[in-house]
């Protein structure tokens, strides 16, 4: 069985139905039956009723999008600009599109992600008014269908009858696109970002969407469909098993608890992590705010993002990692000389001594401000710390950031253990920091001299290597001797065998993507602490990562049976 196309799995489940395509704009149309003002009024009332409908359905959050859009549709500046153009002789439809585009450009240029995202909403509003000016009706589904499009603007998605909408397949878009969020809310499968979809689907009749694997099948036969359905049922069994484990803590068969934390990449990930049962954030990667922009985000923008996460997690700890940027990233505001080996080069904390101290200070000030605004204690974690000198430099930077301001809520300052040298001196460093979090991905690549970005070395990239385990054991011992908690926030924490080994070594916290919570909980629940300790001891003396993996895999109950 071969998928026709593959995209990003955006909402789980499987469906097959007729393809529904966004109607193309008819060139002649019914013509301008109404004037701009009336069209804008109608657009606003359509949007208001969409808002009411979503609200009544308990979809409060999405309904707000349409509330804002209704105001945009009647915005005096938008309509005024369009009216002016009409007086100059532009057609009403063109005028409103131009005015919308110009407002969208202004919003998109703001260095505030949340506001910049509203640009799409303005364009969408202008398109709606233009459609009314053409005398066209909103798009409608006639039968049970799967929407296939380049992208679906929120208003169109919401307009489609949820009872007839069986799935969504988009050529563009991401997991956080409106259409993806909506399909998860509606419980219908969705695949987004499937390149080449429109071209491939041009002559197809039906489509099957596997929103669990991200696969799309054009005109699938019955056998293919049966196979997809079987796989999907399996996936939903696992999802149900995960959901059943949601409120159970992460613990071994004999009740030894390990703190379960989430790795997140943006504030929007908080909800999923909390719903999955995260007891905190073990790694908040902050690079998202720094990518794809002309200037570095200012303090206020960063403060907002950090405050949102601190607010969402309340009493639960949130570890914010300072930016891990370096020569591998090409950022206009961070001109770094080309390096042969950027992962061993000037990056992260090392930027402070390469003329970019202000970049780190701004981030630290924003974290302190977020702590004060929310009244929650932020945990600050620095990556790329090599030794005690780096730790002192880190404390100096935090003090500089706090200089001249009253810091009501003192942060906890800790380090990411990923450079082998700092693992070797863990017991010297531990008394000087509030926590350790081991970044096993880089620790492994540095210890084993195996480039993470080279797929040919994938097999040499296993953190279950006895040498890496010994380094981890040393870090845990050094941390515990000083009475500080030791976590792991690398991929290893979310790998069942890795989580078992780490628990056997005495780790306090495992931080991973929320998607791995269920599998890791099941893995730990299947073994006692004593057994895991014994196996970990054994692993320290094994020949290779492969052998270590075999030790822990043999202790695991087969997934299927555990689920059934």
């Amino acid at each position: 069985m071969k998928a026709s196309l593959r995209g990003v799995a955006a909402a789980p489940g499987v469906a097959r139905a007729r393809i529904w395509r966004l109607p193309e704009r008819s060139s002649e149309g019914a013509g301008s039956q109404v004037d701009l003002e009336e069209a804008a009024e109608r657009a606003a009332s359509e949007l208001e009723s969409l808002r009411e409908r979503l609200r009544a359905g308990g979809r409060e959050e999405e309904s707000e999008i349409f509330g804002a859009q209704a105001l945009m549709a009647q915005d005096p500046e938008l309509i005024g600009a369009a009216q002016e153009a009409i007086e100059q002789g532009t057609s009403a439809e063109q005028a409103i599109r131009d005015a919308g585009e110009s407002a969208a450009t202004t919003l998109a240029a703001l260095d505030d992600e949340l506001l910049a995202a509203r640009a799409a909403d303005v364009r969408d509003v202008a398109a709606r008014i233009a459609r009314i000016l053409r005398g066209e009706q909103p798009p409608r589904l006639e039968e049970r269908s799967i929407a296939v499009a380049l992208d679906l603007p929120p208003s169109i998605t919401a307009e489609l009858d949820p009872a007839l909408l069986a799935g969504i397949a988009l050529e563009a878009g991401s997991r956080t696109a409106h259409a993806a969020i909506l399909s998860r809310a509606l419980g219908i499968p969705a695949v987004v970002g499937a390149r080449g979809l429109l071209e491939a689907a041009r002559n197809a009749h039906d489509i099957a969407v596997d929103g669990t694997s991200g696969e799309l099948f054009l005109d699938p036969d019955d056998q293919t469909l049966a196979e997809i359905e079987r796989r999907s049922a399996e996936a939903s069994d696992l999802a149900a098993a995960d959901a059943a484990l949601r409120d159970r803590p992460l613990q071994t068969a004999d009740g030894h608890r390990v703190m379960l934390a989430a790795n997140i990449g943006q504030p929007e990930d908080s909800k999923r992590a909390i719903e999955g049962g995260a007891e905190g954030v073990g790694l908040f990667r902050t690079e998202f705010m720094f990518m794809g922009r002309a200037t570095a985000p200012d303090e206020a923008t960063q403060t907002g993002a950090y405050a949102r996460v601190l607010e969402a997690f309340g009493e639960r700890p949130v570890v914010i990692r300072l930016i891990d940027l370096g020569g591998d990233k090409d950022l206009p505001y961070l001109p770094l000389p080309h390096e042969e080996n950027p992962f061993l080069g000037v990056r992260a904390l090392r930027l402070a001594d390469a003329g970019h101290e202000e970049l780190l200070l701004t981030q630290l000030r924003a974290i302190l401000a977020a702590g004060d605004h929310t009244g929650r204690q932020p945990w600050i974690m620095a990556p790329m710390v090599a030794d005690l000198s780096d730790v002192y430099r880190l404390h100096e930077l935090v003090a500089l950031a706090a200089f001249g301001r009253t810091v009501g809520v003192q942060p906890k300052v800790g380090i990411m253990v990923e450079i082998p040298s700092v693992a070797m001196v863990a017991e010297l460093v531990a008394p000087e920091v509030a926590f350790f979090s081991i970044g096993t991905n880089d620790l492994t690549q540095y210890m084993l001299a195996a480039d993470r970005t080279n797929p040919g070395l994938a097999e040499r990239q296993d953190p279950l290597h006895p040498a890496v385990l010994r380094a981890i054991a040393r870090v845990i011992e050094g941390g515990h001797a000083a009475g500080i908690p030791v976590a792991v926030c690398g991929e290893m924490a979310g790998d069942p065998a890795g989580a078992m080994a780490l628990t056997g070594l005495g780790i306090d916290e495992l931080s991973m993507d929320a998607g791995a919570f269920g599998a890791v909980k099941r893995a730990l629940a299947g073994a006692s602490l004593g057994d895991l300790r014994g196996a970990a001891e054994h692993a320290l003396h094994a020949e290779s990562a492969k052998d270590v993996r075999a030790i822990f895999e043999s202790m695991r109950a087969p997934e299927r049976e555990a689920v059934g």
Partner: protein
Amino acid sequence: MAETTIELRNPSGLHARPAATFVKAATGFKSDIRVTNLTRDADKSAAAKSMLGVLGLGVSHGHTIRITAEGEDADEAVKTLGEMVKAGLGEAIGG
């Protein structure tokens, strides 16, 4: 002319939902009301009754804004809007 200056405390800034609350309230007054984001650009103001204008000011958490009004209910408009911003425009704001 009446005016007031306030710091915005909403964690995510003046994004769609609080902005909508603000614009709707402003629309209820007869006066000509304008808003300036002093932190970002003190020379640029927007009509308080324009959703796009208000969003376009890019008011983030911690930014200071100035509200000015001219007209028969100017004092009341500035007072009401200022208090609404201070109270978080319907959102929870940290102390």
